[in-house]
């Protein structure tokens, strides 16, 4: 057991757990942030995507020992019903989802994309989401929603 300090959604936290505990388990079981989902535990599906120092990473494969001092952003850190992130608003506007289990990871991947590329093409959005599996077939709506969010964010930035 060891104590590891990191930042989650802007809050400094200290977690006491084995160093090889996956970041996903730290978030869900130690910190009670269950918005980030378990999908495969093999870094193949993207359900557990979070931002680590701004980069999209699959939290199921990131041991706690490598997270010391890192800044993590989860779906809970994106926005709230009162103050939704442009992506969350756009996903609601486009009704982009069915079961919704994959959405937390997809929203995080999309945020990472829009943070580095405010005007992505449809193909660039699709490529950025290729690590995320959606099985209900909401893809087309999700692609539209990310395009809409990009427009919202550009408009917001221009004002």
């Amino acid at each position, binding site marked *: 057991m060891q104590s590891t300090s990191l930042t989650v959604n802007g809050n400094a936290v200290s977690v006491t757990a084995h160093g090889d505990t996956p970041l996903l388990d730290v978030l869900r079981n130690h910190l009670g942030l269950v918005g980030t989902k378990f999908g495969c*535990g093999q870094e193949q599906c993207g359900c557990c995507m979070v931002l680590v120092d701004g980069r999209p990473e699959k939290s199921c494969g990131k041991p706690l020992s490598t997270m010391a001092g890192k800044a993590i952003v989860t779906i809970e850190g994106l926005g709230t019903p009162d103050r939704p992130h442009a992506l969350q608003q756009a996903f609601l506007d486009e009704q982009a989802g*069915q079961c919704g*289990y994959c959405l937390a990871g997809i929203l995080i991947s999309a945020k990472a994309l829009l943070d580095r590329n405010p005007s992505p093409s449809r193909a660039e*959005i699709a490529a950025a989401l290729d690590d995320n599996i959606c*099985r209900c*077939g909401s893809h087309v709506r999700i692609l539209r929603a990310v395009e809409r969010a990009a427009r919202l964010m550009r408009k917001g930035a221009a004002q």
Partner: protein
Amino acid sequence: MSASLTLPALLASNPRLDQWVGFSTRGRVTVSTGRVEIGQGVLTAMLQIAAEELDVAPERILLQTGDTDLTPNEGYTAGSQSIQFGGVALRMACADVRALFLDHAAANFGYTRADLAVRDGAITLRGEPTGHDYWSLAAAVDLRRDATGQALTKSVRDYSVVGQSAPRVDLAAKVFGEPVFAHDVVLDGMVHARVVRQPRRGAAIASIDEAALRRAAKGPIEIMRHGNFIAILGADETVVEAVAAVAPNHVVWDGVDPINPFQEEARWLLQQPSIDRTIGPPPPSEPTPGTTRHEATYTRMHVAHASVAPSCGLALYRDGRLTVWTHSQGVYPLRDALVRTLKLDPAAISVKHVQGPGCYGHNGADDAAADAAVIAFLTPGKPVKVRWRRDEEFGFEPVSPAMVTTARATLDASGRPVDWTTEIWSGRHSSRPGGGGNLLAAEALPDPPPHPPAVEGGYPPGAGTRNGEPLYDFPAKRIVHHLIAETPVRTSSLRGLGATLNVFAIEGLIDELAERAGEDPLAYRLSILSDVRARAVVEHVARISGWQAGLPSGTGRGRGIAFARYKNMAAYAAVVAEIEVEESVRLNRVWCAADAGLVVNPDGAINQLEGGIIHAASWALKEGVRLDGTGISSRDWENYPVLRFSEVPEVTVELVDPGADRPCLGVGEASGGPTVAAIGNAVAHALGARLRDLPLTRERIMAALLRA
């Protein structure tokens, strides 16, 4: 307004009105439905139906769903039947409730009944407020009575909520990462558990290396063994998961019957003993002079549900009562199966639905819930959470059976069928719990239940036989069905059941016949299709896709069209697919036109049709379960590839309004078969050679090109 004197079946079996509607909180309406949210958006549609028929704002409604303590027993949420049947029952119940309140107001306050109406829960007299509403009269109007079916339901012309696109009531919580899934449920003092699965049905534990399991544990664990049921329990999920991952290496099993890995391809079915039957007239004994015959055989591998996450169940057994939380499609049937497994009284078991990852049929959800129930039963007082591992879900969920379908036509001089046979070889498409057994945990316990016999549902709608009968105008049609009782892996229902391959085969052969006749596939179809609604969707999809006759084949680019009415009794759907082929298929665009009768939530229906198209495109191009000598070997997303974002086509879906007050028709599975078939037809058009074995992978394309 229209009156119905016979009750909808689900209202007849759940007649008490207080099972459906309640007004116990002022300003709120509690509406119960046995239907559960499995990703399809049914909650929103049910809410719209209730709001419409009760005349209350949708925001006032609290929905209770899938709970053996609270909601009607509607069996399974499956088969695209929720709106078509469950919605009809809910609508009638709500109409009855509304009528009871108006009858009461008329009888007690001297109003003329015909002058009364409801506006957002308030009773009005010729449009003016009366001061009475559902809540003020709730104590006086006893809903502990049976539905009569005599109330007038609203006319479609008066609808203001049903028929309008409504945002999904469940989506916001998911977009903000709120805890909505079974996987997110945390119970006080909960232990996490994983099961070490029997590799095959009937396998018996020879030895367990408990010392090795304990060495693999970085914290306290408990090893539970009961019969051939083994579980690892512990307070720390990380510890339990790590032990479970290596546990199969430390248990030796007896009685593991090997399987033949070649059975991953479907043609082995042709050599198996089968239960046979013919639906329709017997085949003609003599060939009719002047006719010719043409047939082709189409196959499909086993297909996984492959939900985006593995299944999860929770349970607590305390003071002689068992409570189970599950994302099963049927809380009542699961309760019945647990009654038999645990020898408990039905009244001692509560099963409650909690949402899970998208569900397309009988996946691991019931088994995970049963795992939790068994472990909880053996550790009274302790809440138990079982979340399957990814490889466990791939390896042990029931899969959709491999199938072979031969479509066979006798053609007249114009090349049109005068006789049609669809001959089907398939394992069982249903092995749900509730019918006795069919729970993995139960099979591992001492005194396991007998293996339930393979059954095929009655036709229509059929299971393996589903959509085996083309809707085209052929003078004689029949289905010859061979039900294969023994399959190498457990099989059960997946979205579309047999319709997926049957529509692929039928619509493939129709294209082959059009080509033989030297006619365009669209024109050929319309020449043999008199069903008005069917023609409307086919013509509509041709129009929106800009269908052109006579485009050359074999150019590497292709278009295909296909049509089916799901089950021949649910929604009509016609699909056009546009593809390119080099070494593999690139699906560029898909258009779909569908007629679902009265549509409760148009955007919800379109979302379902779109989802069905992309799901089916993944089946058509990618999905097939791999086997090795012990069972399913495709146990991760690399070995079971599915369509990814950069591979999805542009999709256009339009609803075709049938133009009159038509009943609702289920849409959830309507677009799958036509999509697979349209892609198959487009690939044949692009290659100038037909591939009849799914999935249409790069390897199969290359092999076809080499043969050509």
